[in-house]
């Protein structure tokens, strides 16, 4: 190398004056969409994880294939906090177009790694700058033209690893995982990582305090995104038919089912699949395929996001009224309209809960981590088949598409519950069969499946008004009786839903109760510690389903002030809680943010303090 040693420029303090900061930083990598930086970011994230350092990774990407700016934030936290941080200490600047803005957003005293072809002025005096000679390293390595852009991004992995102390062996291991062990891909990328690290070793002097050292806090954990976990949950849940249509951020859910089905769900004798995965022409057909399969007796599902959900409303209403079990995954993004396809949200709560014309209501499952995406991935079928109704699982882009550090999902702890299905033999035992008769008083009728031979069990599924024998009826009493039974059934469903998770303040019961759900969990957990540090004790109830368990009402009654924290504009979950516990409605305060970004602990803390101190 010909380049002289570069002393870090503009650093606010000499290295010895700043004590090292171990395993505690937020790093933002600013790149251009489509430049292949995902592999580089995954390599850093996974290497940190394998060094035992708790990490969170959030990809903030545009709805675009190539060319628009993308930011990926990697948070390392010695305290185990993985929520998105609003500001970062470390910037990896690879995109000249956003350099000035990115630099301005860096925390005081931060660090900036930059592609040395970026000529924009370095406007901050308090920042430590490290150049990355991407072009020069590329010239020396001369990778295949097709790989050039990907390999180029590995330069920052090498320099960052060298300066922060990330073990290159772990980077290699991360790449092996990423490329499923394909040696050639691993080697061509690793060559750049090593060259860049070597260059940094010779030419850069460490001037910043941020360091990584091995820890043991990730033992027993895994790194997985919620869509993959949901797909695996469905496959372990015995899914038989999947009808779907591509949409961001849900596509990778069905695609993961497709990816894992051959290894998990192939008949050993014939080598053929035990699950049908059909990419439909639109979400209407995706839902139709799932409903048809559910009627037939298969475990069936579809997965989508906002606009697709709108198209599915017609079939969801039909399935509710005909009482067909079906599971609908909604990986939420920003709406209304096309909205922001690549930004996260919790804005479909009310729509999913009441989807359909006329009187309709649907159970919602609310996974708070990829682990729960797996769990609800199989459990949703048990609930749907037991209740004979559509069941929604509301995930979001943050859980669905980002890699989370999470507990490995547990194997299903009970056999599949296929619900009340009568076979030909069962029909011999019963005197008379009526599809929609409430035999057990729980609102759930017995169903027979097409293909059963006993003529006694034959019924005609219809979206038109029907009596308990499924025969067309316009009689007022038939209609009324049927709807009353459906609501009785929904009430039965309340007992089948996963219970909320309640975490109490360490010293007795707090005056303040927090209620949240879904992907905001890490932010709430961290905010509670921040608040506790300021002397504000909170209890926290994380909802995992609608309808609510009795514990939810008790929690609301048991606290002087209750904050419902969510990522939408209208406080949708608060509205559902107010409907459920009307006499406590005024007590429920709403804290909402709808920025499209994963919730941060700082926002939760400040938003709550603002109300508390008002």
């Amino acid at each position: 190398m010909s380049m002289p040693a570069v002393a870090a420029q503009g650093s606010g303090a000499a290295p010895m004056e700043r004590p090292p900061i171990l395993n505690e930083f937020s790093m933002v990598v600013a790149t251009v969409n489509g430049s292949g930086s995902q592999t580089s970011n995954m390599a850093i994230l996974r290497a940190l994880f394998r060094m035992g350092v708790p990490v969170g990774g959030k990809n903030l990407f545009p709805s675009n294939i190539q060319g628009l700016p993308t930011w990926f934030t990697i948070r390392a936290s010695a305290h185990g906090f993985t929520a998105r941080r609003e500001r970062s200490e470390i910037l990896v600047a690879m995109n000249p177009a956003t350099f000035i803005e990115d630099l301005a957003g860096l925390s005081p005293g931060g660090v900036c790694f930059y592609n040395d072809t970026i000529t924009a002025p370095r406007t901050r005096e308090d920042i430590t700058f490290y150049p990355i000679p991407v072009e020069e390293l590329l010239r020396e390595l001369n990778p295949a033209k097709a790989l050039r852009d990907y390999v180029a991004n590995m330069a920052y992995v090498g320099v960052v690893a060298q300066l922060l102390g990330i073990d290159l062996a772990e980077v290699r291991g991360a790449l092996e995982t990423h490329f499923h062990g394909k040696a050639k891909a691993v080697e061509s990328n690793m060559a750049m990582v090593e060259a860049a690290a070597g260059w940094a070793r010779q030419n850069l002097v460490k001037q910043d305090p941020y360091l990584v050292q091995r820890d043991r806090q990730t033992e027993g954990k895994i790194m997985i995104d919620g869509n993959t976990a949901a797909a695996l949950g469905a496959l372990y849940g015995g899914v038989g038919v999947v009808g779907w249509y591509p949409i961001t951020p849900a596509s990778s859910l069905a695609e993961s089912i497709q990816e894992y089905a051959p290894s998990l769900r192939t008949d050993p004798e014939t080598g053929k699949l035990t699950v049908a995965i059909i990419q439909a022409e639109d979400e209407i057909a995706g839902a139709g395929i799932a409903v048809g399969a559910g009627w037939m007796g298969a475990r069936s599902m579809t997965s989508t996001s906002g606009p697709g959900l709108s198209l599915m409303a017609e079939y969801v209403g039909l399935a509710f009224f005909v009482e067909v079990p079906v599971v609908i995954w909604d990986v939420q993004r920003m709406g209304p309209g096309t909205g922001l396809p690549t930004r996260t949200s919790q804005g479909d709560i009310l729509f999913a809960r009441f989807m359909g014309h006329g009187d309709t209501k649907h159970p919602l499952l609310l996974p708070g981590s990829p682990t729960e995406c797996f769990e609800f991935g199989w459990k949703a079928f048990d609930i749907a088949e037991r209740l004979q109704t559509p069941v929604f699982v509301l995930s979001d882009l943050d859980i669905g598409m980002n890699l989370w550090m999470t507990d490995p999902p547990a194997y299903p702890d009970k056999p599949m519950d296929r619900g009340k299905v009568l076979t030909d033999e069962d029909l011999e035992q019963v005197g008379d069969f009526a599809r929609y008769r409430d035999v057990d008083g729980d609102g759930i009728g017995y169903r027979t499946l097409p293909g059963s031979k006993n003529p006694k069990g034959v019924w005609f599924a219809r979206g038109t008004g029907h009596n308990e024998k499924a025969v067309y009826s316009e009689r007022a009493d038939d209609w009324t009786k049927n709807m009353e039974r459906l609501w009785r059934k929904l009430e039965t469903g309340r007992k089948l839903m996963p219970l909320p998770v309640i975490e109490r303040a360490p010293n007795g019961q707090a005056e303040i109760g927090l209620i949240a759900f879904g992907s905001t969990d890490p932010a709430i957990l961290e905010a509670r510690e921040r608040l506790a540090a300021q002397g504000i004790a909170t209890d926290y109830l994380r909802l995992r389903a609608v309808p609510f368990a009795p514990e939810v009402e008790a929690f609301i009654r048991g606290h002087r002030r209750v904050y419902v924290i969510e990522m939408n504009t209208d406080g949708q979950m608060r509205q559902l809680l107010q409907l459920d516990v009307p006499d406590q409605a005024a007590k429920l305060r709403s804290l909402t943010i709808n920025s499209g970004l994963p919730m941060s602990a700082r926002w939760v803390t400040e938003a709550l303090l603002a109300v508390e101190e008002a």
Partner: protein
Amino acid sequence: MAVEVQEARPTGVNLLGLGRGDYRGLPSTLCAGCGHNSISSQIIAACYEMSVPPWKTIKLSGIGCSSKSPAYFLNRSHGFNGLHGRMPSLATGALVANRGLRGIAVSGDGDTASIGIGQFIHMLRRNIPMVYIVENNGVYGLTKGQFSATADKGQVLKKGMENPFNPVDICIEALAANCGFVARSFAGDPRQVKELIKAALGYNGTAVLDIISPCVTFNNRDESTKSYTWGKEHEDPIHDMSVIPEREEIHVDYEPGTATTVEMHDGSRLVLHKLERDYNPRDRMSALMLLEQARVNNELITGLLYLNDEQPILQDTAGLVDTPIVDLSPEALRPSPESLEQLLADFR
């Protein structure tokens, strides 16, 4: 009729020991004289004659007068009266879930060619084994007489409005979508309707039957191409046809060289007897040209327009096991605990 069928079983029952009554449905609530009722009768007759097991059959429909008719046949079969124009996706899900069953679907011209044209085309692309009957009358009956997408250009409503648009030809759409069984018939020709349904039942794929089925209440003016009078005056069958179920002997006394026999997927045989023209139903281009000529010449061409029995069905394209998914054991549906342990190692 040129074909004789020798039956060796008690009279009044078919090979399954079922009588015609076992294939009937509830009394129709459609108008007296509706073409749809005649088609329902032929579905009953065809299923009886082909010894179709009702429990191995599902009935499917969308919304409209036509879509009510599954209640009027095969009372011993399960059925689903679904959404307007969306029945094909429902059928797709149902039949991939249970490949042991066969679908008999009834749709209308509004249900298929107006609101449902998208699902219709995609169903054909996928090739789901199912008889898909369009009861085509060029008009919306249940909502009292609006134009459908197959209404004639210039068709006049009771209130005097005239249709300004060209009609969709369901058979041309089916051919364009690579459907391997495309037929047109006329409810006023019950024998042909029945034989076509029998042939369709033996076909392994989506069989489209576009049956002109006059609406006596809203579209039966003599000049309408969907009326009884027009149909009777303009019907031009391309062949005489008969379907002989499996296990029955054929006695054919056609002139040599005037009949073709096709072995169908279910073992039945389809005998096509030449009428005036030489027509090869295995040539898609001929079918398209015939339909275009018929349009120009103002004729109702009927018969099996196109047959291609070599296209894979969706269940095979999707690589599914032979056992219906609904019959798989819990062990086949839920992978082992060890497999999960192994899998999770990749995420550490």
